[in-house]
């Protein structure tokens, strides 16, 4: 018998309902040396992002005259999954995820304002429990904002899937390995533009639309949360500098 991912009472294995995201947590400025940094948690998935730049292009031959060069590196800590296995750097999976994160962020950064510069984004998975690439995009987005790099909008990302004939939001590892489709979306919520859409496995079109719709809503909810975090952070900064008086 296939695993029952949703009970007839409408609860998922971890107690969420189908359209609920996991608990979110975010912190800004967690690495002092970096120009911008953030941690982002979606339930048990925990990632850290650091942004360096804009700075001079290290490799002159890569320098772009009309826009900034964005580089991204994704990695997973050896202790991020249950079994402590040494993971090779630069395997296919992390190269692919680095690429999609870079593309997704590039679409949001106003690169034309920073020609002949380089922006480095490092994302590192501390604990993996499904939806790491979404969490990485969210963390990177906050870190870029923390670094003060001009962006068109916040990039918010969320995954959704389809199991037991039900669209599910924000899959955890158990649900992710359930064999169903996994749709990752990254959204510019204000502009209502998609910067990333990935799906593995097959899904009939009408189902896909429902799953996509749900993922979109998840992104909007996450974006709202991120905006609040940034707002709180700004208030704290303003307070610390004496701009705002209590």
């Amino acid at each position: 018998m296939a695993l029952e991912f949703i009970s007839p009472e409408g609860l998922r294995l971890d107690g969420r309902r189908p359209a609920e995201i996991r608990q979110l947590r975010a912190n800004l400025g967690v690495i002092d040396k970096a120009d911008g940094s953030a941690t982002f948690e979606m339930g048990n998935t925990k990632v850290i992002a650091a942004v360096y730049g804009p700075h001079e292009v290290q490799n002159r031959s890569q320098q772009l005259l009309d826009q900034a060069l964005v580089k991204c590196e994704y990695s997973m800590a050896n202790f991020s999954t249950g079994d402590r296995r040494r993971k090779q750097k630069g395997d296919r999976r992390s190269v692919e995820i680095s690429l999609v994160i870079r593309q997704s962020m590039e679409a949001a950064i106003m690169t034309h304002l920073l020609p002949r510069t380089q922006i480095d984004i490092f994302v590192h998975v501390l604990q993996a429990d499904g939806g790491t690439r979404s969490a990485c995009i969210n963390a990177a987005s906050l870190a870029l904002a923390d670094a003060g790099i001009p962006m068109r909008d916040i990039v918010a990302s969320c995954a959704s899937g389809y199991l037991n004939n039900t669209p599910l939001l924000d899959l955890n590892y158990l649900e992710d390995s359930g064999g169903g489709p996994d749709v990752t979306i990254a959204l510019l919520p204000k502009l209502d533009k998609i910067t990333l859409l990935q799906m593995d496995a097959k899904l009939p079109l009408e189902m896909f639309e429902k799953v996509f719709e749900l993922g979109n809503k998840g992104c909007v909810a996450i974006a709202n949360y991120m905006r609040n975090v940034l707002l709180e952070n700004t208030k704290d900064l303003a307070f610390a500098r004496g701009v705002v008086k209590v």
Partner: protein
Amino acid sequence: MLQSKAFMKKTRRGQVVKVVREHYLRDDISCGAIFCQSCEKESACLSSSAPNILIVDTNVTLHHIDLLENNAIDDVVILSVVLEEVKNRNLSVYNRIRALCSNPMRRFFVFANEHHKDTFVKTMPGESPNDRNDRAIRSASLWYQKHLGQGPPILLLTNDIENKRKALQEGICTETVQSYVESLGRPELFDLVAQVCDSSLAEMDIEDSRPSKKKLIYPEHRPMSEITSGLQQRIFHQGKLRVNRYNPIEAYVNSESIDEEIIIYGRINMNRAFEGDVVAVELLPEDQWKEGNTLKLIEDEEDEVEEKVGLAPDSVDAAPTSLQAKPGDFGSKIGSRTCGRVVGIIKRNWHSYCGSLEPMPMPAGVGGAVNALFVASDRRIPKIRIQTRQLGNLLDKRILVAVDSWDISLRYPLGHYVKTIGDIGDRATESEVLMIENDINNRPFSEQVLACLPPLPWSVSQDDLKCNYREDIRHIRVFSVDPPGMYQIREANQMIEEFMLAANISVAEKILKHYPLCALLRRHPIPTPKMLEPLIRTAAAVGVKLDITSSKSLADSLDNALGNNDPYFNKLIRILATRCMTQAVYFSSGELTPPEYYHYGLAAALYTHFTSPIRRYADVIVHRLLAAALGLFKLPAVFHDKVQLNSLADNLNFRHRNAQMASRASVELHTLIYFRNRPTDAEARIVKIRSNGFIVFVPKFGIEGPVYLTPKAKDNNGEESCKNSADWIVDEEQQRISTRDGKRVYMVLDVVHVHIEVIEPQPNRSKLVLTLLK
């Protein structure tokens, strides 16, 4: 929305892995009471007029599912912790309890106590999972008591003494199932209460009396940890126990860890395992492998080895599996086969069984509980001891009984009455029994199913005509070639069959081309030389040579197998040939390689079922595939799901086999009814020679069964049987049996005359008997 984390360690393939999962606690979980002021009531069903709101623990659910299914029990809260445990321990009970919960006619409510912020309990250090779950059940009961203060009282049903004591301490009303049923004052419910040999009760017994006093019949099962490590070290072998249909004290286990089939002789070695149980088996030392015969002798006499007269088998699947290796027939063969004994039961396959009570005198006194022995109509099932207060009503009835437990000190398992099917011998009752035994659902279609049909009276609508994938052929004359009562046009019929085969084959080609990985096809495995061996031996004995290199050559040599002046000879050989083959099966093309798609019987590289969607579900599936291949419809989602598609094919095969078994059993039943008052003489053909007689086939009635030349040997009188069988000499190679003086000789395929009559050696178990007419 609160959050907490559940930590647990999980072993998988010997590795110890720590698994951390999130566990969200909620405040929006409904209590399910209609009269509740605060909770959301969408799925609420518990009524305020109920005398009690019941909460049941895991063991009560597992053992008393028959009681819960009775209409007298309602307003029950099923906790999610209980559901989870039931699911892990017995999937069939889980499905039944789930069906109860989703039945709108019943008032069963599932309360997700594990995700409710007030009822969740965390495992305390040193606490066993069982104790933790019991505590969770008590915590939920307490919450209900507080939450529904003004409603009907909450009653926790548990048979666990420790749990009951703790619950009373915490101020929860609790009762055992027995006392609760007594308080209801409905005597008919008593029979539904399971008889569980409670381990705690058994322990108390041992404390009372010295252990040596307790007579142990069966060896203790090994603990699960020992079994697991034994399986890993290949000391034990895991597999499904299959009991011989014709000899219930002999069983087989096919294990992946050993090539051969392990044979288990005798009830002691079977050690309380039932047909279909997944068991762990230990091999006996090789010098004990021959002891099959002696072991048999110490069994009860009721377990005598017996073959019954029945419908002639039409394929290997329907034939008795290992009659050739029957103990006593060819003693030499037994020694070479692997014997074993059951050391533990990994998964029980207990369900309800049809049968009747063993006749017994009515005890003095009315209304008291009586112990009775239940005899299942499936001979593979041992007798089951049940307790009943309605013995008088049940003695002449076919009843359904469920098994509850089997203690080492008891010869027979304990069970309880589930329901009455009807009078013994009644045609409708016996047919119903066949349906239940073969798991055939003959309930009327549900409302939801009927709602899929267009309303009656139906006529062709404008929409139907506009449909671009349908064609109006009403202007063409359409006729049926097989109207009732028409036999002249047999050739046209034959033609239809050719067309049907052609249609099926071309559809198979089309769908396979479009969907190479998910086409539903039908294959017929090529019989192995070993399977055809009995046929070749029989044919050789009568001087016919068969070429089995291919289905074509076999068909040709069958065509040429004409007996001397015997018009029936050819047909008989053909019947024997089909019997050697397995049945054709459905499968998904992604599961096998193209050479395995072959249909041996039809000599077709590809085959499927397409032509009869109104009577076969497989054809509906194939129609959908074809419609998608032609671009008329989308491919349904099931075809994208490999697991689901395979389980669909398995289910088609399972249902098909069951339907065939039921149909055969039904014909056998009606044959029995036909001969009951009509002892008949008929011509028969010998199809197999045995040490003490032969198997005959009666073409006129299509029945087959043994004819004994010597009086049947009694188990406890082996000497006599030896003397008798010594009068007959069997030549296995020539397939003939003759008297010592050579006056009487019987050869395979010979014509003999037999007398067919019905006898009733045991009450309620009448059977057909064939005797030779001299």
